Protein backbone atom coordinates (compact mmCIF):
# COMPACT_ATOMS: atom_id res chain seq x y z
CA UNK A 1 0.00 0.00 0.00
CA UNK A 2 1.29 3.42 -0.96
CA UNK A 3 1.09 5.61 2.12
CA UNK A 4 -0.64 8.94 1.68
CA UNK A 5 1.25 12.04 2.76
CA UNK A 6 1.75 15.67 1.86
CA UNK A 7 4.92 14.78 -0.01
CA UNK A 8 3.06 12.09 -1.91
CA UNK A 9 0.52 14.67 -2.99
CA UNK A 10 3.31 16.91 -4.23
CA UNK A 11 5.08 14.05 -5.99
CA UNK A 12 1.90 12.93 -7.77
CA UNK A 13 1.14 16.45 -8.88
CA UNK A 14 4.17 16.22 -11.22
CA UNK A 15 2.45 13.35 -13.06
CA UNK A 16 -0.92 15.13 -13.03
CA UNK A 17 -2.29 12.70 -10.41
CA UNK A 18 -2.60 9.97 -13.02
CA UNK A 19 -0.50 7.33 -11.26
CA UNK A 20 -2.24 6.87 -7.94
CA UNK A 21 -2.42 3.25 -6.87
CA UNK A 22 -5.84 1.58 -6.76
CA UNK A 23 -7.22 1.65 -3.22
CA UNK A 24 -7.97 -2.08 -3.08
CA UNK A 25 -7.82 -5.24 -5.19
CA UNK A 26 -10.74 -7.05 -6.85
CA UNK A 27 -9.97 -10.61 -5.75
CA UNK A 28 -11.68 -13.83 -6.78
CA UNK A 29 -13.04 -15.62 -3.71
CA UNK A 30 -10.90 -18.33 -2.12
CA UNK A 31 -12.62 -21.65 -1.34
CA UNK A 32 -12.48 -21.09 2.40
CA UNK A 33 -11.79 -18.26 4.86
CA UNK A 34 -11.17 -18.19 8.60
CA UNK A 35 -13.79 -15.48 8.90
CA UNK A 36 -16.42 -14.27 6.45
CA UNK A 37 -18.03 -10.91 7.04
CA UNK A 38 -21.37 -10.47 5.29
CA UNK A 39 -21.99 -6.79 4.53
CA UNK A 40 -19.40 -4.27 3.37
CA UNK A 41 -20.68 -1.24 5.22
CA UNK A 42 -18.56 0.68 7.70
CA UNK A 43 -19.16 -1.85 10.48
CA UNK A 44 -18.28 -4.86 8.34
CA UNK A 45 -15.16 -3.23 6.92
CA UNK A 46 -14.03 -2.05 10.35
CA UNK A 47 -14.53 -5.58 11.67
CA UNK A 48 -12.33 -6.98 8.90
CA UNK A 49 -9.65 -4.35 9.49
CA UNK A 50 -9.40 -4.97 13.25
CA UNK A 51 -9.47 -8.75 12.71
CA UNK A 52 -6.40 -8.45 10.51
CA UNK A 53 -4.63 -5.71 12.40
CA UNK A 54 -5.27 -6.43 16.06
CA UNK A 55 -6.23 -10.07 16.22
CA UNK A 56 -3.93 -11.61 13.60
CA UNK A 57 -6.75 -13.13 11.55
CA UNK A 58 -5.87 -12.24 7.96
CA UNK A 59 -7.64 -14.94 5.98
CA UNK A 60 -10.80 -12.85 5.93
CA UNK A 61 -13.38 -11.97 3.27
CA UNK A 62 -15.96 -9.20 3.26
CA UNK A 63 -18.88 -10.09 0.99
CA UNK A 64 -20.97 -7.18 -0.22
CA UNK A 65 -24.00 -7.43 -2.47
CA UNK A 66 -23.62 -3.93 -3.88
CA UNK A 67 -20.61 -1.70 -3.54
CA UNK A 68 -18.55 -0.98 -0.42
CA UNK A 69 -20.17 1.49 1.92
CA UNK A 70 -23.28 1.91 -0.28
CA UNK A 71 -25.79 1.04 2.44
CA UNK A 72 -26.60 3.15 5.48
CA UNK A 73 -22.95 4.09 5.77
CA UNK A 74 -23.35 6.23 2.64
CA UNK A 75 -26.78 7.49 3.61
CA UNK A 76 -26.39 8.76 7.13
CA UNK A 77 -26.03 12.24 8.56
CA UNK A 78 -22.68 11.32 10.17
CA UNK A 79 -23.31 12.55 13.69
CA UNK A 80 -20.79 11.16 16.16
CA UNK A 81 -21.29 11.41 19.94
CA UNK A 82 -21.04 9.14 22.95
CA UNK A 83 -23.40 10.76 25.46
CA UNK A 84 -25.70 7.78 25.96
CA UNK A 85 -27.49 7.30 29.26
CA UNK A 86 -26.82 3.75 30.41
CA UNK A 87 -23.41 2.36 31.39
CA UNK A 88 -23.44 -0.43 28.80
CA UNK A 89 -24.13 1.80 25.82
CA UNK A 90 -22.10 4.76 27.08
CA UNK A 91 -19.04 2.52 27.36
CA UNK A 92 -19.54 1.05 23.91
CA UNK A 93 -19.99 4.42 22.19
CA UNK A 94 -17.14 5.96 24.18
CA UNK A 95 -14.91 3.08 23.09
CA UNK A 96 -15.78 4.11 19.53
CA UNK A 97 -15.18 7.79 20.29
CA UNK A 98 -11.65 7.06 21.51
CA UNK A 99 -10.95 5.15 18.29
CA UNK A 100 -12.41 8.01 16.21
CA UNK A 101 -9.95 10.38 17.86
CA UNK A 102 -6.97 8.61 16.28
CA UNK A 103 -8.63 7.07 13.25
CA UNK A 104 -7.24 9.16 10.39
CA UNK A 105 -3.67 8.48 11.56
CA UNK A 106 -4.39 4.82 12.23
CA UNK A 107 -5.86 4.25 8.75
CA UNK A 108 -3.55 6.71 6.95
CA UNK A 109 -6.77 8.07 5.46
CA UNK A 110 -8.41 11.39 6.22
CA UNK A 111 -11.85 10.53 7.57
CA UNK A 112 -12.44 14.25 8.23
CA UNK A 113 -13.43 13.62 11.82
CA UNK A 114 -14.40 17.02 13.14
CA UNK A 115 -15.13 17.42 16.85
CA UNK A 116 -17.26 20.50 16.43
CA UNK A 117 -19.62 19.76 19.31
CA UNK A 118 -23.10 18.23 19.45
CA UNK A 119 -26.01 20.07 21.06
CA UNK A 120 -29.16 18.25 22.19
CA UNK A 121 -31.78 20.93 22.73
CA UNK A 122 -34.33 20.91 25.54
CA UNK A 123 -37.72 22.54 25.01
CA UNK A 124 -39.65 21.43 28.08
CA UNK A 125 -39.00 21.08 31.79
CA UNK A 126 -38.93 17.32 31.37
CA UNK A 127 -36.38 17.65 28.56
CA UNK A 128 -34.15 19.70 30.86
CA UNK A 129 -34.46 17.18 33.68
CA UNK A 130 -33.57 14.36 31.30
CA UNK A 131 -30.62 16.36 30.00
CA UNK A 132 -29.30 16.95 33.52
CA UNK A 133 -29.68 13.31 34.34
CA UNK A 134 -27.98 12.18 31.15
CA UNK A 135 -25.08 14.64 31.44
CA UNK A 136 -24.54 13.59 35.07
CA UNK A 137 -24.54 9.95 34.06
CA UNK A 138 -22.10 10.72 31.24
CA UNK A 139 -19.70 12.49 33.56
CA UNK A 140 -19.76 9.62 36.02
CA UNK A 141 -18.74 7.43 33.08
CA UNK A 142 -15.87 9.78 32.24
CA UNK A 143 -17.63 11.18 29.16
CA UNK A 144 -17.58 14.93 28.61
CA UNK A 145 -20.86 16.80 28.80
CA UNK A 146 -22.23 20.17 29.82
CA UNK A 147 -25.69 21.48 30.60
CA UNK A 148 -26.34 24.88 29.04
CA UNK A 149 -29.13 27.34 29.74
CA UNK A 150 -31.05 29.13 26.99
CA UNK A 151 -28.80 32.18 27.09
CA UNK A 152 -25.65 30.13 26.63
CA UNK A 153 -27.27 28.26 23.75
CA UNK A 154 -28.22 31.53 22.12
CA UNK A 155 -24.65 32.77 22.33
CA UNK A 156 -23.18 29.61 20.84
CA UNK A 157 -25.75 29.12 18.04
CA UNK A 158 -26.55 32.63 16.84
CA UNK A 159 -29.04 31.68 14.11
CA UNK A 160 -31.12 29.41 16.32
CA UNK A 161 -34.43 30.98 17.25
CA UNK A 162 -34.16 31.18 21.03
CA UNK A 163 -36.94 33.72 21.42
CA UNK A 164 -40.01 33.13 23.54
CA UNK A 165 -42.22 33.39 20.46
CA UNK A 166 -41.63 29.93 19.09
CA UNK A 167 -44.08 27.15 19.68
CA UNK A 168 -41.54 25.18 21.72
CA UNK A 169 -39.08 27.74 23.13
CA UNK A 170 -35.51 26.51 23.69
CA UNK A 171 -34.91 26.15 27.42
CA UNK A 172 -31.36 24.83 27.27
CA UNK A 173 -29.26 22.03 25.88
CA UNK A 174 -26.67 19.44 26.56
CA UNK A 175 -23.36 19.91 24.79
CA UNK A 176 -20.78 17.24 24.11
CA UNK A 177 -17.80 19.12 22.76
CA UNK A 178 -15.96 15.97 21.67
CA UNK A 179 -18.92 15.03 19.47
CA UNK A 180 -19.12 16.05 15.84
CA UNK A 181 -19.19 14.60 12.35
CA UNK A 182 -16.99 12.54 10.03
CA UNK A 183 -16.96 11.92 6.30
CA UNK A 184 -19.06 8.77 5.88
CA UNK A 185 -17.59 7.56 2.57
CA UNK A 186 -14.05 8.16 3.76
CA UNK A 187 -14.70 5.95 6.77
CA UNK A 188 -15.77 3.04 4.55
CA UNK A 189 -12.99 3.63 2.04
CA UNK A 190 -10.32 4.13 4.70
CA UNK A 191 -11.19 0.88 6.45
CA UNK A 192 -11.48 -0.94 3.12
CA UNK A 193 -8.08 0.24 1.90
CA UNK A 194 -6.36 -0.54 5.18
CA UNK A 195 -8.01 -3.98 5.44
CA UNK A 196 -7.09 -4.83 1.85
CA UNK A 197 -3.48 -3.89 2.55
CA UNK A 198 -3.48 -6.43 5.39
CA UNK A 199 -4.69 -9.17 3.04
CA UNK A 200 -8.46 -9.03 3.52
CA UNK A 201 -10.41 -9.94 0.37
CA UNK A 202 -13.14 -7.40 -0.43
CA UNK A 203 -15.67 -9.18 -2.64
CA UNK A 204 -18.26 -6.84 -4.10
CA UNK A 205 -21.34 -7.47 -6.25
CA UNK A 206 -21.88 -10.77 -4.45
CA UNK A 207 -25.06 -11.40 -2.51
CA UNK A 208 -25.32 -13.93 0.29
CA UNK A 209 -28.52 -15.89 -0.32
CA UNK A 210 -28.19 -18.61 2.28
CA UNK A 211 -26.04 -20.28 4.90
CA UNK A 212 -24.62 -23.78 4.53
CA UNK A 213 -24.67 -25.81 7.73
CA UNK A 214 -23.08 -29.06 8.83
CA UNK A 215 -24.33 -30.70 12.03
CA UNK A 216 -26.25 -27.51 12.74
CA UNK A 217 -23.16 -25.28 12.57
CA UNK A 218 -22.43 -22.81 9.80
CA UNK A 219 -19.61 -23.78 7.44
CA UNK A 220 -19.97 -21.05 4.85
CA UNK A 221 -22.32 -18.95 2.79
CA UNK A 222 -24.22 -19.53 -0.43
CA UNK A 223 -23.93 -16.59 -2.77
CA UNK A 224 -25.22 -15.72 -6.22
CA UNK A 225 -21.67 -16.57 -7.37
CA UNK A 226 -21.50 -19.92 -5.61
CA UNK A 227 -20.50 -21.32 -2.23
CA UNK A 228 -17.76 -19.70 -0.13
CA UNK A 229 -16.52 -21.57 2.93
CA UNK A 230 -16.03 -19.82 6.26
CA UNK A 231 -15.04 -21.18 9.67
CA UNK A 232 -16.84 -18.32 11.33
CA UNK A 233 -19.36 -15.99 9.76
CA UNK A 234 -20.22 -12.49 11.01
CA UNK A 235 -23.33 -10.88 9.57
CA UNK A 236 -23.32 -7.06 9.51
CA UNK A 237 -26.15 -6.22 7.14
CA UNK A 238 -28.03 -3.42 8.92
CA UNK A 239 -31.61 -3.17 7.55
CA UNK A 240 -31.43 -6.59 5.92
CA UNK A 241 -30.43 -8.41 9.10
CA UNK A 242 -33.94 -9.63 9.90
CA UNK A 243 -34.04 -11.18 6.46
CA UNK A 244 -30.58 -12.74 6.96
CA UNK A 245 -31.68 -14.23 10.29
CA UNK A 246 -34.65 -15.77 8.52
CA UNK A 247 -32.28 -17.35 5.99
CA UNK A 248 -30.25 -18.75 8.89
CA UNK A 249 -33.38 -20.14 10.52
CA UNK A 250 -34.07 -17.97 13.57
CA UNK A 251 -35.83 -14.72 14.45
CA UNK A 252 -34.41 -11.45 15.68
CA UNK A 253 -36.38 -8.68 17.39
CA UNK A 254 -35.76 -6.28 14.52
CA UNK A 255 -38.04 -4.16 12.41
CA UNK A 256 -36.73 -2.47 9.28
CA UNK A 257 -37.88 1.07 8.59
CA UNK A 258 -36.94 3.70 6.02
CA UNK A 259 -35.05 6.66 7.47
CA UNK A 260 -34.51 9.75 5.36
CA UNK A 261 -32.05 12.56 5.10
CA UNK A 262 -31.71 15.54 2.83
CA UNK A 263 -29.09 18.10 1.90
CA UNK A 264 -29.57 21.67 0.75
CA UNK A 265 -27.79 23.65 -1.90
CA UNK A 266 -24.38 24.79 -0.61
CA UNK A 267 -24.46 28.06 1.30
CA UNK A 268 -21.90 30.15 3.23
CA UNK A 269 -20.89 28.79 6.65
CA UNK A 270 -23.74 29.38 9.07
CA UNK A 271 -23.83 26.37 11.42
CA UNK A 272 -20.52 25.30 12.96
CA UNK A 273 -21.77 22.53 15.24
CA UNK A 274 -24.34 19.74 15.24
CA UNK A 275 -27.76 20.67 16.57
CA UNK A 276 -30.38 18.08 17.41
CA UNK A 277 -33.83 18.41 18.90
CA UNK A 278 -35.90 15.44 20.01
CA UNK A 279 -38.87 17.61 20.81
CA UNK A 280 -39.46 19.30 17.45
CA UNK A 281 -37.69 16.34 15.86
CA UNK A 282 -35.04 17.62 13.57
CA UNK A 283 -31.28 17.74 13.44
CA UNK A 284 -28.86 19.66 11.32
CA UNK A 285 -25.22 20.29 10.60
CA UNK A 286 -23.33 21.86 7.72
CA UNK A 287 -20.81 20.02 5.59
CA UNK A 288 -17.47 21.51 4.62
CA UNK A 289 -18.90 21.95 1.11
CA UNK A 290 -21.61 24.17 2.59
CA UNK A 291 -24.67 21.94 2.24
CA UNK A 292 -26.95 21.75 5.21
CA UNK A 293 -27.27 18.11 6.23
CA UNK A 294 -30.70 17.40 7.67
CA UNK A 295 -32.02 14.21 9.17
CA UNK A 296 -35.63 13.10 9.43
CA UNK A 297 -37.44 10.56 11.56
CA UNK A 298 -38.22 7.00 10.50
CA UNK A 299 -41.36 6.17 8.59
CA UNK A 300 -43.84 4.51 10.92
CA UNK A 301 -44.27 1.43 8.78
CA UNK A 302 -41.82 -1.35 7.97
CA UNK A 303 -40.15 -0.98 4.62
CA UNK A 304 -37.23 -2.11 2.53
CA UNK A 305 -37.61 0.31 -0.41
CA UNK A 306 -34.70 2.69 0.05
CA UNK A 307 -36.84 5.80 -0.07
CA UNK A 308 -39.07 7.49 2.43
CA UNK A 309 -42.51 9.01 2.68
CA UNK A 310 -43.34 12.60 1.75
CA UNK A 311 -45.13 13.58 4.97
CA UNK A 312 -41.92 12.75 6.84
CA UNK A 313 -39.91 15.18 4.70
CA UNK A 314 -42.45 17.87 5.30
CA UNK A 315 -42.47 17.38 9.08
CA UNK A 316 -38.70 17.46 9.16
CA UNK A 317 -38.43 20.71 7.28
CA UNK A 318 -41.15 22.22 9.46
CA UNK A 319 -38.99 21.38 12.47
CA UNK A 320 -35.86 22.85 10.87
CA UNK A 321 -37.64 26.08 9.97
CA UNK A 322 -39.08 26.26 13.47
CA UNK A 323 -35.54 26.07 14.84
CA UNK A 324 -33.88 28.21 12.14
CA UNK A 325 -36.45 30.56 10.53
CA UNK A 326 -33.54 32.06 8.57
CA UNK A 327 -33.36 28.86 6.52
CA UNK A 328 -36.94 28.99 5.26
CA UNK A 329 -35.89 29.93 1.72
CA UNK A 330 -32.97 27.53 1.34
CA UNK A 331 -33.61 25.00 -1.39
CA UNK A 332 -33.08 21.29 -0.85
CA UNK A 333 -30.86 19.55 -3.37
CA UNK A 334 -31.26 15.85 -2.71
CA UNK A 335 -33.26 13.52 -0.51
CA UNK A 336 -32.82 9.80 0.06
CA UNK A 337 -33.63 6.95 2.42
CA UNK A 338 -31.77 4.13 4.09
CA UNK A 339 -33.21 1.03 5.75
CA UNK A 340 -32.56 0.99 9.47
CA UNK A 341 -32.96 -2.08 11.67
CA UNK A 342 -34.61 -0.94 14.87
CA UNK A 343 -34.73 -2.94 18.11
CA UNK A 344 -37.28 -2.60 20.93
CA UNK A 345 -34.73 -0.88 23.22
CA UNK A 346 -32.92 1.21 20.57
CA UNK A 347 -29.68 -0.67 21.26
CA UNK A 348 -27.73 -2.94 18.93
CA UNK A 349 -27.42 -6.70 18.96
CA UNK A 350 -23.78 -7.85 18.93
CA UNK A 351 -24.06 -11.49 19.68
CA UNK A 352 -23.70 -15.18 19.11
CA UNK A 353 -26.79 -16.71 17.56
CA UNK A 354 -28.60 -20.03 18.03
CA UNK A 355 -26.48 -21.31 15.10
CA UNK A 356 -22.89 -22.22 16.10
CA UNK A 357 -20.13 -20.22 14.31
CA UNK A 358 -22.66 -17.62 13.17
CA UNK A 359 -22.48 -14.16 14.75
CA UNK A 360 -24.64 -11.10 14.15
CA UNK A 361 -23.83 -7.41 14.60
CA UNK A 362 -27.00 -5.47 13.83
CA UNK A 363 -29.85 -3.47 15.28
CA UNK A 364 -27.88 -0.21 15.14
CA UNK A 365 -31.02 1.34 13.76
CA UNK A 366 -30.93 5.08 13.34
CA UNK A 367 -27.65 5.68 15.11
CA UNK A 368 -24.83 3.29 14.34
CA UNK A 369 -22.47 5.39 12.25
CA UNK A 370 -20.95 6.92 15.37
CA UNK A 371 -20.19 3.45 16.66
CA UNK A 372 -18.44 2.20 13.52
CA UNK A 373 -14.88 1.89 14.91
CA UNK A 374 -15.99 0.54 18.29
CA UNK A 375 -18.51 -1.87 16.81
CA UNK A 376 -15.92 -3.21 14.38
CA UNK A 377 -13.35 -3.55 17.12
CA UNK A 378 -15.48 -5.47 19.63
CA UNK A 379 -17.01 -7.62 16.90
CA UNK A 380 -13.55 -8.48 15.55
CA UNK A 381 -12.40 -9.46 19.03
CA UNK A 382 -15.49 -11.67 19.42
CA UNK A 383 -15.06 -13.35 16.03
CA UNK A 384 -11.36 -13.95 16.64
CA UNK A 385 -11.91 -15.60 20.03
CA UNK A 386 -15.33 -17.12 19.49
CA UNK A 387 -16.38 -15.41 22.73
CA UNK A 388 -18.14 -12.08 22.99
CA UNK A 389 -15.97 -9.08 23.92
CA UNK A 390 -16.79 -7.75 27.43
CA UNK A 391 -18.26 -4.53 25.98
CA UNK A 392 -20.53 -6.57 23.68
CA UNK A 393 -21.84 -9.02 26.29
CA UNK A 394 -24.80 -6.91 27.38
CA UNK A 395 -25.99 -6.61 23.76
CA UNK A 396 -27.07 -10.23 23.50
CA UNK A 397 -30.23 -11.62 21.94
CA UNK A 398 -31.10 -13.17 25.32
CA UNK A 399 -31.83 -9.74 26.76
CA UNK A 400 -35.20 -9.81 24.99
CA UNK A 401 -36.07 -12.94 26.94
CA UNK A 402 -34.52 -12.25 30.33
CA UNK A 403 -35.61 -8.61 30.43
CA UNK A 404 -32.15 -7.02 30.70
CA UNK A 405 -33.01 -4.36 28.14
CA UNK A 406 -30.84 -1.27 27.77
CA UNK A 407 -33.47 1.37 27.16
CA UNK A 408 -31.83 4.14 25.15
CA UNK A 409 -34.99 5.58 23.65
CA UNK A 410 -34.46 8.69 25.76
CA UNK A 411 -30.91 9.31 24.61
CA UNK A 412 -31.36 7.86 21.13
CA UNK A 413 -34.93 9.06 20.44
CA UNK A 414 -34.31 11.21 17.40
CA UNK A 415 -30.88 11.11 17.92
CA UNK A 416 -28.44 9.79 15.48
Amino acid sequence: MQRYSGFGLLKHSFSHHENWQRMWRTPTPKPVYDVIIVGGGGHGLATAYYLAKEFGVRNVAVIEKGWLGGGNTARNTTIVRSNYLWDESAQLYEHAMKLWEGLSQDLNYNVMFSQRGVFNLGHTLQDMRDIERRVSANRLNGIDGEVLNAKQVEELIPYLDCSKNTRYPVMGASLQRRGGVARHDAVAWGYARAADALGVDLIQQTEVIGFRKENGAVIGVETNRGFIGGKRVGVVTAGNSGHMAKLAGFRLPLESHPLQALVSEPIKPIIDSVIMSNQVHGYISQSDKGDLVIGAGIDGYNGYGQRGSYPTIEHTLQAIVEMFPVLSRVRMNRQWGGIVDTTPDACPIIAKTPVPNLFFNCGWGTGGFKATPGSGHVFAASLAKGEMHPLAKAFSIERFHNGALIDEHGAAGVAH
Partner: protein
Amino acid sequence: MLHIFCPHCGELRSEEEFHAKGQAHIPRPLDPNACTDEEWGNYLFFRDNPRGLHHELWIHAAGCRQYFNVTRHTVTYEILETYKIGEKPGVTEASVAAKKAVAQGVTA
Protein backbone atom coordinates in the same frame (compact mmCIF):
# COMPACT_ATOMS: atom_id res chain seq x y z
CA MET B 1 -47.80 9.52 -0.58
CA LEU B 2 -49.78 6.36 0.13
CA HIS B 3 -53.53 6.37 -0.34
CA ILE B 4 -55.16 4.05 2.10
CA PHE B 5 -58.70 2.71 1.94
CA CYS B 6 -60.21 2.82 5.41
CA PRO B 7 -62.69 -0.07 5.62
CA HIS B 8 -64.64 1.77 8.30
CA CYS B 9 -65.00 5.07 6.42
CA GLY B 10 -65.23 3.32 3.06
CA GLU B 11 -62.95 5.95 1.52
CA LEU B 12 -59.44 6.34 0.16
CA ARG B 13 -57.64 8.84 2.39
CA SER B 14 -54.07 10.12 2.48
CA GLU B 15 -51.29 8.50 4.49
CA GLU B 16 -51.01 11.43 6.86
CA GLU B 17 -54.34 10.57 8.50
CA PHE B 18 -53.06 7.14 9.53
CA HIS B 19 -50.53 5.57 11.87
CA ALA B 20 -48.91 2.20 11.33
CA LYS B 21 -49.01 0.08 14.46
CA GLY B 22 -46.92 -2.92 13.47
CA GLN B 23 -47.63 -6.57 12.83
CA ALA B 24 -51.28 -7.68 12.85
CA HIS B 25 -52.85 -10.90 14.15
CA ILE B 26 -50.68 -11.31 17.28
CA PRO B 27 -52.67 -13.33 19.79
CA ARG B 28 -52.29 -12.23 23.40
CA PRO B 29 -51.29 -15.19 25.58
CA LEU B 30 -54.44 -16.57 27.20
CA ASP B 31 -52.70 -17.16 30.51
CA PRO B 32 -49.77 -14.72 30.77
CA ASN B 33 -48.71 -16.11 34.15
CA ALA B 34 -48.15 -19.50 32.59
CA CYS B 35 -45.80 -18.14 29.90
CA THR B 36 -42.14 -18.99 30.01
CA ASP B 37 -39.68 -16.07 29.68
CA GLU B 38 -39.09 -17.23 26.14
CA GLU B 39 -42.78 -17.13 25.21
CA TRP B 40 -43.34 -13.80 26.93
CA GLY B 41 -40.25 -12.24 25.27
CA ASN B 42 -41.39 -13.52 21.89
CA TYR B 43 -44.85 -12.08 22.44
CA LEU B 44 -43.53 -8.67 23.49
CA PHE B 45 -40.55 -8.12 21.25
CA PHE B 46 -40.29 -10.45 18.27
CA ARG B 47 -42.09 -9.35 15.13
CA ASP B 48 -42.25 -10.54 11.55
CA ASN B 49 -40.04 -8.34 9.42
CA PRO B 50 -40.57 -9.72 5.92
CA ARG B 51 -39.22 -8.39 2.68
CA GLY B 52 -42.48 -8.92 0.87
CA LEU B 53 -46.09 -9.21 2.02
CA HIS B 54 -46.79 -7.97 5.52
CA HIS B 55 -50.08 -8.04 7.43
CA GLU B 56 -50.15 -5.05 9.69
CA LEU B 57 -52.32 -3.05 12.01
CA TRP B 58 -53.13 0.57 11.18
CA ILE B 59 -55.25 3.20 12.86
CA HIS B 60 -57.17 5.94 11.08
CA ALA B 61 -55.90 8.38 13.71
CA ALA B 62 -57.03 11.65 12.15
CA GLY B 63 -60.24 10.16 10.82
CA CYS B 64 -62.61 7.66 12.39
CA ARG B 65 -59.93 6.67 14.96
CA GLN B 66 -60.58 2.99 14.43
CA TYR B 67 -58.13 0.16 13.91
CA PHE B 68 -58.05 -2.08 10.86
CA ASN B 69 -55.65 -4.39 9.03
CA VAL B 70 -53.59 -3.85 5.91
CA THR B 71 -51.77 -6.28 3.63
CA ARG B 72 -48.85 -4.33 2.20
CA HIS B 73 -45.72 -5.15 0.25
CA THR B 74 -42.69 -3.88 2.17
CA VAL B 75 -40.51 -3.29 -0.90
CA THR B 76 -42.96 -1.77 -3.38
CA TYR B 77 -45.19 -0.39 -0.59
CA GLU B 78 -48.21 -1.47 -2.64
CA ILE B 79 -51.30 -1.93 -0.49
CA LEU B 80 -53.07 -5.08 -1.62
CA GLU B 81 -56.06 -4.93 0.68
CA THR B 82 -57.43 -3.46 3.87
CA TYR B 83 -59.81 -5.38 6.12
CA LYS B 84 -61.47 -5.09 9.48
CA ILE B 85 -60.23 -6.45 12.80
CA GLY B 86 -61.39 -10.02 13.23
CA GLU B 87 -61.36 -10.68 9.48
CA LYS B 88 -58.79 -12.85 7.73
CA PRO B 89 -56.50 -11.53 4.99
CA GLY B 90 -57.49 -12.44 1.43
CA VAL B 91 -53.99 -11.96 0.06
CA THR B 92 -51.18 -14.02 1.62
CA GLU B 93 -47.75 -15.30 0.56
CA ALA B 94 -49.43 -18.64 -0.12
CA SER B 95 -52.28 -17.20 -2.18
CA VAL B 96 -49.86 -15.11 -4.25
CA ALA B 97 -47.63 -18.14 -4.85
CA ALA B 98 -50.64 -20.24 -5.90
CA LYS B 99 -51.82 -17.54 -8.31
CA LYS B 100 -48.35 -17.29 -9.81
CA ALA B 101 -48.20 -21.05 -10.34
CA VAL B 102 -51.56 -21.00 -12.13
CA ALA B 103 -50.51 -18.07 -14.32
CA GLN B 104 -47.27 -19.81 -15.26
CA GLY B 105 -49.14 -23.02 -15.98
CA VAL B 106 -51.42 -21.17 -18.38
CA THR B 107 -48.68 -19.39 -20.25
CA ALA B 108 -46.18 -22.27 -20.30
